[in-house]
Structure formats: C-alpha cells, structure tokens
C-alpha cells in the first residue's frame, strides 16, 4: 500500500511539474521524502560526536539515541550521554510536535532530577557542537515552507524557510537524492542575515529494512567560524521494537540512571 502511495506521489511530483508553482513542487518533494521514510516504527543508534575547533583540536562525546515514530504527531526521542564521564547519564526526552513548540525534559543523574526545559532555544548549539537543537530535532514537513530550486539528474534542490520565527535561519537549501528514497545529501544553512553559515553533508549511507536510508556520517562545517562537528552513527537497530512506554519520564530516569 505504501509503495502504491509512494509511486503515486512520484507521479504527482514529476507528472505535474509544469503545472505547479515552485512552492507546490517544493512541498511535494518534502512530502515524498517524508513518505519514503514512513514505517520505521522505532530505532536505536550509537553516535560518536567529534567537535573540532578552528585550530584543529578535537573533543568527543558518545551518545545513544532511541527514536519512536509517530505519524499523527512528531516523533519521540530519548538521548543518553555516555561520555565525557562527568556528564555520563545525562539524558533528554523530546516529544516533537508538527505544530507548536516541542516538549522536552532533562534528567540530571547526580541528584536524580527530571527538569522540564524550554524548547524555545532552537538556534543554540547542542552541547557545544556546530549542530543547533533545531538541526537535530525530527524533520516534520509542517516546520517549513518550500520552494523548488533545481533538479540536476537525480539530485533535487529545495529551499526551506522555517515557519518558527525563533529559528536561527532565514532558509536552508536541501539537496535530495530522488533515486535513493529522497535521502538528503547536503544542507546549506543561511543565517538571519542571509549569509551562508553552515554546510551539512551526509555520507556512508546504508539501506536498512530495504526501505530506510540512514547516513553513517554527518559532517557539519561552520563557514564563518571554521569549526566542525562530525557525527558517526553505528549499530543502527530497527528491530528494537520500542514502545511508547520506552519514552516516558520513568523511562528517562531509567535510561540515565
């Protein structure tokens, strides 16, 4: 059934290309990309984050992420820090929403406290990295407006303007690979002054469950500060069969310990 919908959308995207405005075409590509990733249900993955400053000095963080797919609303995710040692066990639980701000809780293992935190700070860096919170939250179609820019072979570039005025960007230029399930190949981020701020490239893609493309490496380069953050994903597991109970505040405390 999903395959049928997918091909229907594909026909809609390319069949009616001439009748559409760039906005309609952009939106349809974003929807096709979302559709191509529907049905993964839940996943777990280990992430090694390497921060590199402009002098080339590096520092590392290890985290584990669990994701639970929801279609009527945004996904739920649980992130646990395993290193550096002084923050080991610190964990966050996020309920993303298609509309409105996300709900987020932070677990502090030293005093076992769960704190509801504001998700207002979208543009701020995630743990000192070049990734902003908004770059790592689940990508919902409703969070942007779209404009088709160009298609070169199998690569399609779409401009995405964040709906939320608290976003740190005026626009993002996203390059999709339409032959590979509309996976993203590259994102360029333009800051509030509309100058190029960061470039994110995806590499070492693998196909899981014959449907879901996941990049093994995310490389975010800040073009203004010359700092860089690399995320390396290992041990993707789509068979964890997580349930909504694995994303409760009780589960957050259990994960952090």
């Amino acid at each position, binding site marked *: 059934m999903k395959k049928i919908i997918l091909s229907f959308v594909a026909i809609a995207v390319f069949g009616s290309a001439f009748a559409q405005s760039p906005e309609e075409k952009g939106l349809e590509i974003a929807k096709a990309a979302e559709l191509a990733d529907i049905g993964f249900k839940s996943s777990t993955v280990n992430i090694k984050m390497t921060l590199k400053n402009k002098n080339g000095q590096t520092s590392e963080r290890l985290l584990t992420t669990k994701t639970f797919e929801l279609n009527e609303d945004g996904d739920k995710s649980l992130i646990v820090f395993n290193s550096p040692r002084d923050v080991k066990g610190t964990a966050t639980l996020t309920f993303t929403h298609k509309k409105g701000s996300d*709900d987020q809780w932070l677990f502090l293992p030293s005093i076992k*406290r769960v704190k509801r935190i504001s998700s207002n700070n979208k*543009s701020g860096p995630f743990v*000192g990295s070049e990734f902003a919170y908004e770059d790592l939250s689940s990508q919902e179609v409703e969070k942007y407006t779209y404009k088709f820019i160009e298609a070169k072979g199998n690569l399609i570039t779409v401009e995405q303007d964040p709906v939320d005025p608290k976003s740190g960007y005026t626009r993002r230029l996203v390059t999709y690979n339409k032959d590979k399930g509309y996976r993203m190949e590259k994102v360029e981020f333009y800051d509030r002054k509309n100058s190029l701020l960061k470039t994110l490239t995806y590499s070492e893609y693998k196909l899981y469950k014959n449907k879901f493309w996941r990049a093994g490496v995310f490389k975010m380069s800040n073009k203004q500060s010359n700092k860089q953050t690399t995320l390396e994903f290992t041990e993707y597991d789509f068979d964890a069969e997580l349930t909504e109970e694995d994303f409760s505040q009780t589960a957050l405390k259990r994960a952090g310990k």
Partner: protein
Amino acid sequence: MKIKRVLFFSMFLLIVSGLHLSAQTKKKKKTVQEFELEVEGEYRYFYKDAQFNGQKSQFPALAFTPKYTVEWDKGRESINFTGFVRFDIDNKRSHWDVRELYYQKAKGKWELNIGLKKVYWGVTESNHLVDIINQTDQVESFDGEEKLGQPMVQFTWSTENFGSLDFFYLPYHRKREFSGAKGRLRFPVLLEKEAISYQSNAEEWRQDVAIRWSHYMGAFDVGVSHFYGNGREPLFEFNQQGEINAFYPVINQTGVDLQVTHNAFLWKLESIYRTAKTQDFFAIVAGVEYTFSNIDSNGLDIGVIGEYLYDERDDLALNSLQNDLFIGSRIAFNDTKDTSILIGGILDLEKTSKIFSIEASRRIGTSWKAEIEARIFNSIDNKEFILTNFKEDSFVKFSISKFF
C-alpha cells in the same frame, strides 16, 4: 542496631542476587556491566574567625564515589550500586554511605525498584520543599541536594492519559548527621545524631509509606504527593528550663509541585502542608525562571530566576527560609567544556539577613572537572534563631574531580 542493619542489607542482597540468577537463566540476552569511580579532592576555607570553640577554618578533604551497574534484557532489568566515602578534618563529615544499591525491573507500563535508592521530587531552585523520600546528607553540602540512600520498595505505574503513580514502602528511617566539634555550620552545643530520638515507638523501623501522582498536559507538569512516616527533619522543643528536646516526629505531609513551561518562561510552584502531634505548618516556594538563549550567537544562555519563599514555622524553619526572596542567575556557555555558573542571593524580607552564593563548574580535558562554590552570610540578624549560629561561616570551596 548495627547488627540489625547489616542483617537487613545482607537479606536484601540475597534477594537481589536470587532474582538476578533466576532472571539470568531465563534470558539469553547479554548482560552489560560497568564500573566507574570518581575521586574528588576538595578544599573548603572559612575566612572569618570561628564563633565557637574548637572550630577550624581550613578543611582539605577527599571523596570517592564508586559506581557499579549490571543490566540485562536491554536495560529493562538491572542492579545498580553507588557508594560514597568522605575523609575530612571534621570527624562527622568523614562518613560513608551506600547512596544506591537496588534491583530494578521494568515491564510495559510498570517499574519495580527494591533496595537503597535516591528519588527526587520538585521543580523549584532555591528550596526543595516537596522532596522528602531521602534523608539529607547535611554534612556533605549546604544546599541540601546531597542525599542518603533510602531503603525502599518503589512501584511505578505509568499511563499515557492519566500520568504516573508511584507507591513507596519505606521500611527504615535514616537520621541526619550534624557537624562535629571541628566543623563549621553548627550550633554552640553539638548535636549528636544518636541523641535525637523518635516519637514513634518503632523508632527507625517504623514502616513508612508515600504515594505520588505526576502528570504532564501540554505546558503543565504537575505532581501531588503524600508522605506518612518518620519526618526527615528533627523537631526541636524547648522546656521551661530552656533544655532542648530533639526528636523525629511522625508526620503527614501533602505536597504539590507545578511547572508551567511557556516559551522561555518556566513558572514554578512547590507547596507542602505538614502535620505532626505538636506542629502543623504550611510552606510555599513560587517563582519564575526566564532564559535569554544564545544571546551572542555562540551559545551563551543567561537565565534569571526569582522565587518567593514562605514557611509558617517562622524562626523554627530549619533552613531559615520563612519569608524570603531568592534572586539568581544561571549562565551557561554551552561550550565544549560545559562551563556554567549559578549565582544567587537569598534576601530576608523581615530581617537584614542575606545569603549570597556562587557555584561554577567546568570540565578539564576529557575526564576532569573543576568546581568552585561560595556561600556568604551577610548582615545576619541577631534575632535569627538558626542562622545566627552560622553568621561567621561564610566559605569558599574548590574541588577537582577525576573520573575513572
């Protein structure tokens, strides 16, 4: 009593290892073990002359926090241990504790915990009224955030639409420790832990219970709790001869905590009503935290916190927060070293007393952490029943931790 305690712990260990074995044989899943150790060197300096005889000014100290976890069934079952040992100039601050030693099992909507554990309730920053499950490790920290392990059976039932319910069975009470002769932050007469008695004939073996319901609805996080058992704070009574009679009363305490998260505003409230045979009182702390985030486009967050504190016990409130205002600021640099600073002041609205504080921390390299803490007692009013004993006890503390 010591023997009783040892028996209690060994029985618990036996049960836990039994559970572990039976679980092991059933599940073919892999077990994951982890051992960690934090070694902390600390130096506290009280820069004013001591008020009472025998009190020292400089306190170099060492602490070890070993941690061991074994989990299986993808983390749904585990045994967790956290120990703590402190060596200090003050013989009472030299102490050890089993912070946690418990077996945990989670299945679907429920979770069971058996053993010594730490549990935190509440939302506010300047005072933790609602938090009552664990005894405070009074000699360890001034802010009351360090806790002793509490023996318990905790059963949690989480639902999606009606929030979660926690049931606690607390079979054993732990007494609070007070500074020794050389220690600061004490009264002229030394309080001996052993000299403080119980109202209950069952003493520390009184079987206590607690329940908590907590839920989240959109911007609202709410918790309602009730505790019935030996109080965590001793009650001081004075007879006509002026002698102190200190004991742990049997209390009923109902607590409410509420946080409303709206954009960059966090509106917070905690309130309790406590009844005991000789004392009924109401206390509240309410306030707001607002964060200016990423103000330099480089991750700098500056939060401002304002909280009002009221305690009906007035001068008998052990932390002297009876009608006070807390103003503070949390500065987070969000840099690769996780540098953060919390500064604050508690201002008494009826008296001249003020307490200023600063807490700052930063990681060094990959496995070290440095912290600075200062508490400054300023213009402490002579009418203060408790704080007047601490008025010369302003201090600065430096600590450095290595994580193995």
